[in-house]
């Protein structure tokens, strides 16, 4: 298998080429909390969270400058209604098949096959590439966590881009 892309070195090089000072990385010193799954996966309600800039036709698209908004998308949505917009990755494949960045059909199939208990009523989407870690930590992340609580999610699957 190929080695992963070294995004840290890539970003350092890009910023240097643009004449910016060295990129200031977020450093999380605390270990992330860990909560073992306490119920069988076949009984768990999963929340799908995706950062690839997915919105549903009729919703507002994301903008490209530190957009802290998010969308709630009904998990019964038709894939034909899904749209993709993002400034930092090639979206052509995702627009051809939104399941690449928002695997809603695969998850619905697993629910039908009883390999997964269910999905929350709404999935949550936003657009990554937000430069302010503080705003993500203090504004967006708490709002997303509240959504998971409100929808009584047991587990969350984050699909990053």
């Amino acid at each position, binding site marked *: *298998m*190929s080695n992963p*892309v070294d*995004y840290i070195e*890539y*970003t350092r*090089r*890009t910023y240097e*080429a*643009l004449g910016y000072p060295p990129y200031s990385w977020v450093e999380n010193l605390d*270990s*992330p*909390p*860990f909560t*073992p*799954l306490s119920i069988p*996966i076949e009984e*768990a309600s999963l929340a799908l969270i995706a950062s690839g800039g997915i*919105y*549903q*036709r*009729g*919703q*507002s*698209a*994301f*903008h*490209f*400058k*530190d*957009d*802290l*908004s*998010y*969308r*709630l*998308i009904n998990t019964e949505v038709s894939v034909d209604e899904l*749209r*993709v*917009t*993002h*400034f*930092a*990755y*090639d*979206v*052509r494949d995702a*627009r051809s098949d939104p*399941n*690449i960045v928002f*695997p809603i059909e*695969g998850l619905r*199939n*697993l629910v039908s096959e009883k*390999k*997964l208990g269910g999905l929350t009523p*709404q999935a949550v989407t936003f657009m990554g590439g937000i430069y302010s870690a503080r705003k993500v930590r203090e504004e967006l992340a708490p*709002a997303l966590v509240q959504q998971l609580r409100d929808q009584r999610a047991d*587990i969350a*699957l984050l699909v990053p881009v």
Partner: protein
Amino acid sequence: MQRKILMQALDAFVDIKTAGEIQRLPYRWSADESWRENPMNGGSQSKSKSSGDFRTPRSETPQYQEPEDEKAFLEQHTTGACGTCIGAE
């Protein structure tokens, strides 16, 4: 392949017992790996190595996939917020 990845993601909810554990899957996006030379290219598909920022310029205007999407947004919001575009209405 999408199904396999999802099944392995569900398995991870059960199998992972410690914080920070990463399970690497043996899949590759494409046999042509030239995209690795410029992985944050916003769509121009240039295969040259990065010498600057190739990403789409930033803007605070919603960037719709299709022009028709903006019309659909306006039609859906004629009476106010729809309640699903949180922070954008």
